[in-house]
């Protein structure tokens, strides 16, 4: 099982540092990593990722520059492009595909795109091998979850984790470190989802310490570390140091 799914914001601390960070993650044994494409209005993000997005934008991490920076990288985990719809919509599906081909991006997670809203755009990306990762939140009941998992299907065991998993949102609200998230209800939801699907699950939003990571692994799911990692990197921490301690247990 995949032990840890880290999230980093492209362009923070800097765009130039990105290839090195990805190479370190890969060397550490990280199989897949979410890479945030900074957006001006991240409505599902808490203060840490908002600030990181704004710093990244100020430093010139435009969608095109980020994707160009990723082009040709081989020393990288599989990437999931984590963003909001509008920047992608402005690029357009055809051009976006041209930009994605040479990168390690394997899938997309677009926070404000329900599967009904841009069916043509989404189908084009999926057919070309870039599926959208389904999000399942505390407000998603099991019937709705079934529908979401069907409409954004698992491409199957022959495909990498990055294209197969479903993202379980641990708590109501936005990304962030904040208060410790109560994981008891998450355990129940993960169990219920495992009863209806064989798909790998990742759990994120509000997880930061090693104990929480271990608890999620004990549920048979992959923990996501986002805000805590982004904050530590912004404070000058090293990726390897921050991740190593959270990969075991």
């Amino acid at each position, binding site marked *: 099982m995949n032990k840890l799914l880290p999230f980093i914001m492209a362009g923070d601390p800097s765009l130039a540092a990105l290839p090195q960070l990805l190479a370190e993650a890969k060397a550490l044994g990280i199989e897949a990593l979410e890479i945030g494409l900074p*957006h*001006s*209005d*991240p*409505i*599902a*993000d*808490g203060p840490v990722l*908002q600030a990181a997005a*704004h710093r990244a*934008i100020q430093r010139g991490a*435009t*969608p*095109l520059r980020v994707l160009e920076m990723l082009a040709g990288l081989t020393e990288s985990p599989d990437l999931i492009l984590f963003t*909001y*719809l*509008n*920047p*992608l*919509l*402005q*690029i357009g599906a055809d051009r976006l595909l041209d930009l994605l081909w040479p990168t390690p991006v394997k899938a997309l997670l677009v*926070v*404000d*795109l*329900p599967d*009904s*809203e841009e069916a043509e755009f989404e189908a084009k990306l999926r057919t070309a091998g870039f599926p959208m990762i389904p*999000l*399942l*939140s*505390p*407000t*998603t*009941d099991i*019937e*709705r979850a079934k529908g*979401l998992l069907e409409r954004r299907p698992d491409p199957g065991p022959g495909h990498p984790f990055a294209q197969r998993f479903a993202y379980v*949102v641990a708590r*109501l*609200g*936005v990304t962030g470190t904040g208060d410790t998230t109560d994981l008891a209800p998450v355990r129940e939801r993960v169990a219920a989802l495992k009863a209806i699907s064989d798909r790998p699950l990742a759990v994120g939003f509000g997880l930061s310490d090693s104990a929480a990571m271990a608890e999620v692994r004990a549920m048979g799911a992959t923990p996501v570390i986002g805000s805590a990692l982004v904050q530590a990197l912004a404070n000058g921490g090293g990726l390897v140091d921050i991740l190593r301690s959270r990969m075991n247990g």
Partner: protein
Amino acid sequence: MHATEFLLPTRFGTGGLGGCYAPETLMQPLLDLEEAFRMALDDPSFRVELKSELRHFVGRPTPLTSATRLAAKFGLQGLFLKREDLTHTGAHKINNAMAQALLARRMGKSEIIAETGAGQHGVAAAAACARLGLKCTVYMGVTDMARQAPNVARMRLFGTKVVPVEAGQGTLKEAVNEALRAWAARCDKAHYILGSALGPHPFPTMVRTFQTVIGEEARAQMLEQTVSLPDAVIACAGGGSNGLGLLVPFLGDDLHRFAVEAGGHGSALGEHAARLDGGRLGVLHGCKTLLLQDQHGHTAETASISAGLDYPALGPELAALALDGKIEVLRASDAQALEAAQWLCESEGILPALESSHALALLPELAKRGFATVLLGLSGRGDKDLSTYQSKLGI
């Protein structure tokens, strides 16, 4: 309650604007909200309750005032003002805020979240919540808190918690961001009263539905007072709630419909909030619409002397009606709006909100185009803008 799909149309016009581009956490709350809205509209007791609140608390129907001296100034035959400034709390926003607060109570929600720009929607939500005994939290950009300070005090007097939003330009866009985040965190207990015809479905439809009382009254009052309809109907447009509220009931009539955006202080991106000329289709705050944005799909900065019009997206239904040629969208600059406010003060003894002054500013243009009688939506009163008028006009 547990709706599984939307039953009302979610898209507007030939371009299919609108939609529901919401994070998954908000999807079930939005589905449930649409269901509650549909059921309420079908329930005679809700309609009676709303009508009674609009009459006895809000003060509807609002008057239609014939502004003869101002009409004469521009050579118009007739000018009629729909007086939303005379509602309780001083702007059309209360029509929607009261209706949604009643809806929230029906849904068993005990808390209300709202955003505000000019503060009029915040004050309206605060007043409705005080009256219905609901806990209310309003998100407001720090720039807007400074320029609309009297409204901050009014909200606080009504027992509402006003949360300053520091991000970005500290205006309405950031307030909506923060309100959406807060709603995602508390959607099990709270209802979000969005203040304009914006956001994910069902908000644009719901807000427009609760605002069309403006145009329905005005249409009947025009017929009663003049035995005919006007040649042109005009309103200002931030997100578009007073504009749609006034204009939609006239869509079937053979007359001209205008909405006026904030021209700010220039025509470069960042100097105005004129979305029709300056915007491209994009997605912000849950809907696809005309959006001021840079080439990367990041939302652009905006500028307007009027906090209520200072927003980068035009509401999706109004944008669709504009693109389909049913409503003409014009713009008025900061300076034009300030001058127009003085016209109304001096000719009619009415102090308009800076937002409404943008519609007034186009009166000479309408006269020049040959319209004889004009119906104008006076969306709010200008008490909240006194300090801006004082400093800009040197009085």
